[in-house]
């Protein structure tokens, strides 16, 4: 077993926190891991990345070889494009949908997201909406970790001790809030994973789920989504630009 991850984002977005959570999960599972990060010059609002390799056997290189990555986990959607050459053909992209526009020539937002939906395997995560649903607006990175977890050799329970250690001092509500955000992220990741396995195209799965309020996403109902996506209203529903609604309402719109 090995999972090679490229974490990406923009300096200041906290990708090292994500890495640290995953490192500790690997440690608690007794797995081998190496995580190379960038400090210094590249941190001032520039593109940043980190390599995280997890395996059940010794890992040689701290850097992921090109074409062998299993996951790109990105807190910024444009940044994914910079690292695709690391991803193997079976690899998955987990990306936040929110753009970080600190450059003058940032491409059109819709084009950035659409390009990700052209990938064979991609999970788009509206991390801000998930964090807001858990009333933890600062916990967007936890939403990303949650969404990535179904594709990692971890359970949500692996993070709990660490989340507790991080937030305990600030009160139990914060601990529970972060765990809830992790869970909602996981629900999104797991639902997408099941649908992709069933052969539903990336574009359809993600377009549908981005229209569903995070607290109602339920992986146990992935089959219902698969069926609904064949419904007569599905195409129109996925085309329209609109707000989020509960899962039941979204399913009804497709049927």
């Amino acid at each position, binding site marked *: 077993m090995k999972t090679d991850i490229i974490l990406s984002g*923009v300096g200041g977005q906290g990708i090292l926190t994500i890495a640290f959570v995953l490192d500790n999960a690997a440690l608690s599972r007794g797995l081998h891991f190496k995580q190379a990060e960038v*400090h210094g010059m590249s941190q001032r609002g520039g593109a940043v990345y980190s390599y995280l390799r997890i395996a059940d056997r010794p890992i040689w290189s701290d850097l992921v*070889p*090109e074409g062998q990555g299993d996951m790109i986990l990105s807190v910024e959607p444009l940044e994914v*494009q910079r690292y695709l050459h690391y*991803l193997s053909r079976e690899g998955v992209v987990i990306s936040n949908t929110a753009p970080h526009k600190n450059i003058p020539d940032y491409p059109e937002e819709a084009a950035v997201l659409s390009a990700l939906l052209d990938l064979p395997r991609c999970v788009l995560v509206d991390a801000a909406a998930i964090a807001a649903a858990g009333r933890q607006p600062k916990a967007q990175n936890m939403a990303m970790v949650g969404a990535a977890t179904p594709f990692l050799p971890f359970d949500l329970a692996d993070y709990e001790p660490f989340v507790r250690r991080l937030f305990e001092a600030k009160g139990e509500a914060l601990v529970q809030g972060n765990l809830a955000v992790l869970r909602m992220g996981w629900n999104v990741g797991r639902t997408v994973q099941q649908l992709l396995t069933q052969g539903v195209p990336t574009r359809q799965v993600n377009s549908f789920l981005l229209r569903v309020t995070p607290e109602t996403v339920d992986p146990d109902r992935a089959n219902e989504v698969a069926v609904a996506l064949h419904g007569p209203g599905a195409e129109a529903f996925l085309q329209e630009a609109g707000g989020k609604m509960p899962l039941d309402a979204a399913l009804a719109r497709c049927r």
Partner: protein
Amino acid sequence: MGDREVWLGDEAVAMAAVHAGISGVYGYPGTPSTEIFEAVEAVALREGIHAHWSANEKVAYEEALGMSFAGRRSIVTMKHVGLNVAADAFMNSAVTGVHGGLVLTVADDPGMHSSQNEQDSRYYAHFALVPCLEPADQQQAYEMTREALDLSEAVGLPVVLRLVTRLAHSRASVLPGPRVPQKPLDVWRDPMTFTLLPQNARIQYRRLTEKQADLLHRSETSRWNVLSDGPRHDRGFLVNGIAWNYLMEAFGGECPHPVLRIGQYPVPVDLMRSLVERVEEVVVVEEGYPFLEERLRGIVGIPGKAIRGKLDGTLPRTGELNPTIVAASLGLPVAQGLRPTLGEVPGRPPTLCPGCSHTDSFLEVREAMKPYGDLRVFSDIGCYTLGFYSPLNAIHSCVDMGASISMAAGAAHAGARPVVAAIGDSTFAHSGITPLLTAIRQNVDFTVVILDNGTVAMTGTQKTLATGEDLDRIVLGLGLDPDHLKVIEPHKMRAEEQVAIIRREIEYPGTSVIIARRACVQALRRGVV
């Protein structure tokens, strides 16, 4: 013996030093070495370890040498170019030798992630005739640091621990060892050893050369220098430090050829010979300069043997290695990844933070220099070097710490006018004071702008040694005419008046200093200013 810990390579070095009983950590910040100092600093109070940033690497090294003189252990941390600054102390400390263990932990930056060059510190160890250890992973970083302190005392010499960015800034789990207490004070008594008058230095230098046979023997038998065999002898590999990781990665953990893995220097000659005898061709895979390769090849090469590496283009001469480059250079299969799905992916270079005082300072300096046409600002190293990029395009040089003032003076000597130097407060404390003193004594016709943001921002907002009124007094103490020291708080709201002040000082035909003082927003956010 503790539990496994998740540590950066830098942190592994730091904790090893703490566990090995150091009494002091010395250094000046510099990526990728900074976290070594900071990890010791975090426990220094509890452990009773002296931990204060020094003004520069030379000062840091000499302080450590003093601690060694007093019989106690210490480490000195710096980035590779920091060793250029500390080189005088370092080279001479090899001649004096040490008493308490002294380890120089120096972090090289192949690929120049955040540096001006990618010099290889192994040459310095070789030059000074002292041992060098080079870890390949975080566990080795921990163990070697402890061994280096022991070795330093055993041979009576400073020992270099060479790190590279990818190890310094990579995390893995490390199993720490048992702790040993700090050493008691035991001040060196022999008046001769550390007094390098020629008469004494000749004796000491001879002693240094006499130690070389022992150092070589230690390398030949070191557990860090390992020659492994393999079924195929058409080729063999000579690798250092983390290059070994990339080689293993390329072969999936099982290399069918003999491999000599180097982690301790001086270069083990017999081991190198054994490798060469066994194979038809040696491929040298090195992270850094072709140091081993040059030594193996010599000037005339080895008759009947092919030696390949960075010098013949088998591997790239510049930049850092990675598993893909190593595999491709060896003709091993390289996987193809996905292609971008978006047509144009714009770059995202680092920039000055929104609200950074340097931006306002540069805008004002630019405006003040406008009447003189072509703008030339000699600058230095720090966040403000990002003023090079558009839209500021405000600086025209960045060479080594302190060079802004000295280069500006040289240009002024040559008749250039107007000449402006821009330097950060920490860079000024590091290496700006002596060139300014030199200039003031000659009343050089130029203007020095000191960008005082109250912190060492570039490397993570460490404490700066010369800021606020202390800085003003230092400048005046150098003999500057007080009429030509102007302190401003750079701000768009007051730009007009401040541009006028800067312009007046540029016009003044002598040395003037503008201190542009406003706190770094990151330092404010972290509450460190």
